[in-house]
């Protein structure tokens, strides 16, 4: 067989057999927030691709969480502290940036707008690069 063709087939086979990337940090964040807050709405967005880190990284996240308990915990600072506390292990470990949108169900009913995250400015050099 033509060596170029053979190489193409080889690459194609390898690509097909390679495993789908797993996202354990994303899964852990999802699980912990679900368990602790029983949210009526939860988005865990891995925004690492917007930053200067390798493909399939799990370093930069945004969570959108709507929970009943935020009807009583009104101050944004307290809501953020609650979420940071639940995710303390992740924040001390792999998670480098966490943007939090925490709303009560009544606030969410009024507006479910989620602001866009800012663009990367290069980073601080503490993480592996693309």
């Amino acid at each position: 067989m033509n060596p170029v063709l053979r190489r193409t087939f080889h690459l194609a086979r390898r690509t097909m057999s390679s495993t789908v990337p797993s996202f354990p940090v994303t899964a852990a964040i999802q699980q912990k927030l679900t368990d602790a807050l029983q949210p009526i709405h939860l988005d865990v967005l891995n925004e690492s691709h917007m930053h200067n880190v390798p493909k399939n990284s799990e370093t930069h996240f945004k969570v959108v969480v709507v929970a009943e308990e935020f009807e009583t915990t009104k101050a944004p600072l307290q809501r953020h502290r609650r979420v940071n506390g639940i995710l303390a292990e992740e924040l001390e470990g792999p998670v480098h940036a966490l943007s939090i949108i925490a709303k009560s169900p009544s606030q969410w009913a009024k507006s479910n707008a989620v602001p866009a995250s800012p663009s990367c400015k290069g980073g601080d050099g503490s993480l592996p690069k693309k």
Partner: protein
Amino acid sequence: MLSSIATTALRRTTTATFTSAVATTRQHFRPALAIRFFSEDSHGDFAPQRKVVEGEDAAMKMIQEHVESNPVMLYMKGNPSMPMCGFSATVVQALKAEGIDFSSVNVLDYPDIREGVKKFSEWPTIPQLYVDGEFIGGCDIIVQMHESGELADLLKDVAKSEE
């Protein structure tokens, strides 16, 4: 000793420099850039000298002093003219839009302050904003307060108390 280190770490950003004229901004910031490029290619003796903040206790004391003596104090990555992180950049933009003068520390230059301020505020990420010694929040909260007008109200009181 401590106070001299604190002054070295601190940077004052006068919003007037940013809003009044582009030329002023350039004049103000170009020299620093030039020094940086120059120093990278030259002997280490000519590199900018930075005081070393040693140890957690020194860092905590310094942070306490910063937030008590600076009405609007921002811990960020990079400096206001060249933020190194989108979240820090967003907070600088919000403060500039409020037209307020603020002090800042580039935590990338001071690893002990970077870790210290996380403990001090019990807050895991940078940027962090203090107003009148009180922790206000990070990027999400500042943006939210800027849009709702709460930040303007908060800073109005600061401006008054400074007069």
